[in-house]
């Protein structure tokens, strides 16, 4: 039990319950105040911190900020466990550097899975950092073995981060596979475009394959009542939902800061922030237009919309692929980069093939059920 978890909560009942669940799996320390939490963090260097927000003295937001600002050691993954479910608190927690957010009551199994994912993510983020001594003076990686090792750890990081977003969303895992393959195929097609071909290097193709599944990572910061709402969102709910772009970029910037992961994380940051921008400037979050929008984000914008249209949602059936293709081509030059929409049209047969490959025969997915079991019979 080398992995360390620090649990911070001013309620003794909560501390006992969380400790009870985790104690057989991890090395545990507990703190009942923000001041104690910072002291234990400084001396004990936990891998994961479960952090309450409302506490006497220094609150959870400030604890999070101080822990994340500590440059002496690679900072732990901070998981907020709070009864506050408002978007403002979530947003503030992520802005303070939190990596994840749970609303009480937490489901113990889900908490355990997420802690495991965060352990893997932290390990992956630290590993390239630790191997930075193997970099040559100009920052390039000095041998093939090291490159392989660094790439492998980055892939673990991508996997872990993607899983974090996926566990909160109703999207199936296939969505991420489809999006990754669509992005790669469309980028390959751009190699035939006179205006864009010079941007599409082998490194670009490798990076977009790994970065595109992270486009919605910011959804970890959207409250369940909005993220899992089966109906259409109200205007104010949609405003909250839009924040997933900024939050996603923030999470990835922090990951980039902690690791030596290189170009693909920078691409992932661009994609997460700007994949909802539109060519004519009417998108969000920044209203960028035309080539102000980074190329990888313009690519993912096309395939993400195509995948959304051809997937069933609680409020709409899936569209036929031809209808979705028309939707994309009709919006070339308004919503989408016209050259990318054109390339999408040219490689459409391959896009359809990818769609078939990753669409299960029984495409309908059972709704997420959170069963409750009476532990002891009611009197």
């Amino acid at each position, binding site marked *: 039990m080398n992995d360390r978890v620090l649990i911070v909560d001013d309620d003794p009942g909560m501390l*006992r319950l969380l400790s009870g669940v985790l104690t057989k799996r991890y090395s545990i320390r507990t703190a009942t105040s923000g001041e104690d939490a910072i002291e234990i963090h400084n001396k004990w260097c936990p891998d994961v911190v479960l952090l*309450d927000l409302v506490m006497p003295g220094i609150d959870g937001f400030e604890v999070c900020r101080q822990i994340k600002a500590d440059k002496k050691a690679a900072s732990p993954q901070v998981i907020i466990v709070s009864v506050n479910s408002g978007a403002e608190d979530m947003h503030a927690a992520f802005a303070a550097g939190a990596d994840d957010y749970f609303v009480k*009551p937490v489901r113990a199994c889900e908490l355990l899975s997420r802690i495991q994912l965060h352990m893997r993510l932290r390990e992956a983020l630290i590993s390239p950092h630790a191997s930075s001594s193997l970099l040559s003076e100009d920052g390039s990686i000095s041998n093939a073995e090291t490159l392989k090792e660094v790439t492998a750890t980055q892939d673990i990081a991508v996997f872990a981060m993607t899983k974090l977003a996926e566990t909160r969303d109703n999207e199936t895992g296939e969505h991420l596979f489809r999006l990754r393959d669509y992005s790669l195929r469309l980028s390959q097609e751009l190699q035939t475009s006179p205006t864009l071909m010079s941007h599409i290097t082998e490194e670009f193709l490798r990076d977009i394959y790994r970065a595109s599944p992270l486009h919605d990572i910011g959804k970890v910061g959207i409250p369940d009542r909005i993220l899992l709402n089966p109906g259409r969102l109200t205007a104010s709910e949609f405003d909250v939902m839009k924040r997933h772009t900024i939050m996603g970029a923030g999470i990835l910037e922090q990951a980039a800061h902690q690791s030596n992961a290189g170009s693909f994380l920078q691409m992932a940051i661009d994609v997460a922030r700007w994949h909802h921008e539109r060519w004519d400037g009417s998108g969000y979050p920044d209203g960028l237009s035309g080539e102000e929008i980074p190329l990888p984000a313009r690519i993912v914008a096309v395939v993400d919309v195509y995948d959304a249209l051809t997937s069933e949602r609680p409020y709409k059936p899936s569209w036929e692929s031809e209808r979705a293709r028309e939707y994309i081509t009709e919006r070339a030059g308004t919503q989408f980069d016209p050259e990318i929409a054109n390339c999408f049209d040219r490689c459409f047969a391959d896009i359809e093939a990818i769609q078939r490959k990753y669409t299960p025969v029984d495409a309908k997915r059972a709704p997420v059920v959170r069963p409750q079991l009476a532990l002891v019979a009611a009197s």
Partner: protein
Amino acid sequence: MAEALSIDCDLSQLLDECDLRSLFRQYGSEMSDRIRLLQQASRTSNFSQTRRLSHQLKGSALQYGFKTLGSYAGSLERLAEQGAPFCELNLQTDTVINECLLVQKYISELLECNRS
């Protein structure tokens, strides 16, 4: 009335019966302290303390499966946040305390009943 003790199904997979019983026994036994502190804070219109204690109680009650208590405590937290008048604050405090007593009694009877 305290509702049936219903918690995360997975908690019973992660903790053995003995640990679960011990958790609930301790939760029930510390209820008297929570009641005392809450009463003290509320009777002296100490809003920040009332808010903190009710917030704590809301979180733990929901986590232990006592939704009604969690909801009552949440209402008290809001009143304390707003700096509600003395009468209103104390009326809600009494509601919370009554529910705390019911939860305490419920846990005690349940554990006793399971032992026999």
